[in-house]
């Protein structure tokens, strides 16, 4: 029997959310039912509901940074049991057969990965509904154990912001290691975790920011140095310095001033600017054998690795916890950049509408 769910979402493209009742599917053999305790707020949630990336399937219940407690499991589930603290991220299904899935890159599934909200389910075609809700039913493979010692109240943003900044640091692990110079451009939801991860991985970390005001803050997060990108002299002095640059700037920008900061065989990876970028000069890549790449979320094995790393290092996102009914105000603040660095909804505040 499908279950009745309550969430916050929208029935028309909008950035104003309201309580919505909907159904969750009955447990399949490999499904896990989860009572959601915390849901992180990601900028994608807003883009999706507002229709910035195309008309969303309705109703739209956003949220892909999910933490909760298992309430029931399908007969074939072995990895989780009732009472476990678990997490769900941006992907809830994929074919699990193709070369990408079997290599642990489920996000590149050749049949297409199923996103946590706004996407048709692979089996019954129903639209997936995200984590701004009281419970969720998810295929076991995409449910992560929250390791012992990791505070569930601060874990949710790891499932999108965390893995998005973690994955490139691990893909380029020879560039991000003790003795290596790593820079993180843009200190927001992604960047603040990039600084923490890179420092915990042993690299010497420089935060690159436009604002002097963020310098002290970046150092508090663990950056060893701060480079102000508007300071021409400082940027010139930093030429060919870095082995790796994590570029989390969320809007289109000229990447060349940053590319010039890469040393021989250095790598710069874009995780924020999902947009057309101004032309780059081939000579900028050819000199010093540089490369610019991109990276989005991460697969299941990388996510498991990240959660265990965070538990071991007690590494957490900086979060501001809100009540469910404060979500619309939180979205407004997120749009203004007024958040350090991630909002998390305490789902125990989700009240039945009158």
């Amino acid at each position, binding site marked *: 029997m499908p279950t009745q769910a309550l969430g916050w979402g929208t029935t028309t493209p909008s950035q104003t959310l309201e309580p919505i009742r909907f159904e969750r599917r009955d447990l399949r053999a490999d499904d896990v039912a989860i009572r959601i305790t915390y849901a992180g707020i990601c900028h994608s949630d807003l883009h999706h509901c507002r229709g910035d990336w195309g008309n969303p399937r309705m109703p739209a219940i956003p949220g892909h940074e999910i933490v909760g407690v298992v309430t029931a499991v399908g007969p074939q589930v072995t990895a989780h049991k009732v009472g476990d603290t678990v997490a769900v991220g941006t992907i809830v299904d994929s074919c699990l057969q193709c070369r990408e899935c079997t290599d642990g890159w489920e996000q590149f599934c050749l049949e297409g990965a199923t996103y946590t909200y706004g996407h048709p389910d692979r089996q019954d075609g129903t639209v997936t509904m995200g984590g701004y809700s009281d419970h969720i039913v998810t295929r076991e493979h995409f449910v992560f154990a929250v390791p012992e010692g990791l505070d569930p109240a601060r874990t949710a943003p790891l499932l999108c912001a965390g893995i998005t900044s973690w994955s490139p640091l691990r893909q380029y692990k020879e560039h991000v290691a003790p003795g290596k110079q790593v820079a993180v451009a843009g200190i927001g939801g992604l960047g603040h975790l990039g600084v923490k991860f890179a420092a915990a991985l042993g690299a010497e970390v420089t935060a690159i920011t436009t604002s002097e005001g963020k310098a002290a803050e970046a150092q508090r997060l663990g950056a060893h140095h701060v480079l102000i990108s508007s300071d021409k002299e400082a940027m010139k002095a930093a030429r060919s310095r870095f082995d790796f640059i994590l570029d989390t700037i969320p809007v289109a920008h000229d990447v060349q001033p940053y590319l010039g900061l890469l040393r*021989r065989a250095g790598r710069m990876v874009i*995780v924020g600017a*999902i947009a057309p970028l101004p*032309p780059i000069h081939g000579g*900028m890549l050819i000199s010093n054998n540089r490369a610019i*790449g991109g990276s*989005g979320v991460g697969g299941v094995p990388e996510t498991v690795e990240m959660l265990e790393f965070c538990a071991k290092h007690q590494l957490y996102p900086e979060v501001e916890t809100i009540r469910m009914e404060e979500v619309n105000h939180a979205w407004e603040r997120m749009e203004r950049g007024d958040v350090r660095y991630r909002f998390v909804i305490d789902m125990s505040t989700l009240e039945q509408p009158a």
Partner: protein
Amino acid sequence: MTQPTRAYGVTAPDAPVAPLAIERRNLREDDVAIRITHCGICHSDLHMARNDWGMSLYPMVPGHEIVGIVTAVGPGVTRFAPGDRAAVGCLVDSDRTCNHCQAGHEQFCPEMVFTYSGIDRHDGSVTYGGYSEAVTVSEAFVCRLPQALDIARAAPLLCAGITTYSPLKPFGVGPGHKVGVVGLGGLGHMGVKLARAMGAEVTMITTSPEKGADARELGAHDVLLSTDPNAMAAAAERFDLILNTSPVRHDIAPYLGLTKPLGTMVIVGAISELDGLHGGALAMRNRIVAGSLIGGLPETQEMLDFCAEHSIHPEVEIIQPADINTAWDRMERGDVRYRFVIDLGGQA
């Protein structure tokens, strides 16, 4: 005392190539004197002659794809003796102490000296390239030319060869790897041969069906016409590596879309702006766009040995010095398969 040497070069950006009398330095302790038998013609020679990059010094003797026979060595030279076959590429000196030199990537040394239109680090003289009958180069920048290579055809390996060889290994090219080569010219045709010899499955990506047939003869397993939208769509996410040898400004997006998740496109030709970079195309498939500049000395020797082992030679058209101007005109029109080599008369 210096050595009077016959050469061919230009005296100004708008001057044609003409015979020039130059002096080669007397041997220093670590120098190798080489009688040049052949020198390849690279498109850079023309760009440099015309000062397209604003770094030219005149008079200029171009040429950085040099092969020949050692005629004399300085007292400190240990790896060469008169009569040995030798090869010189784009570089003739560097500081030899920086991290790049220590790592064998002399091409990035801030004190690196180009084979022509460079400034000698010791006497401040202007360096002259391989369009000449002899050259004198520090031993550290001279490679051994294996006996198995045909000296008349080997010269283009020193620039076109190393430029395409260098990126293949770092990006994992080998058996099971799918490589697409964009652009069938001096660089591209070497890319096809080298990637094939490394065991990869090689596809030529070209705008013209005629070049497709040529590419198969060179060793390409498959041809993809970039002007055919259906074929391009069918090839989406097919390649592990795209070796992009296109020498001009172009839209890279259609080629980037051909790379698999975690795939790479490496730019070796276009020293110009590139259009079509999209953060989404990179991030949604974890792709990278890389650049690669020639190669260092250890890698260049490795490439020559690899070519000898696999009997890989560039396709060349051999010309006489009097025909250099005509060859430059033809190269500009793309009328060469695939590299001109000047026969400088030096006995092999």
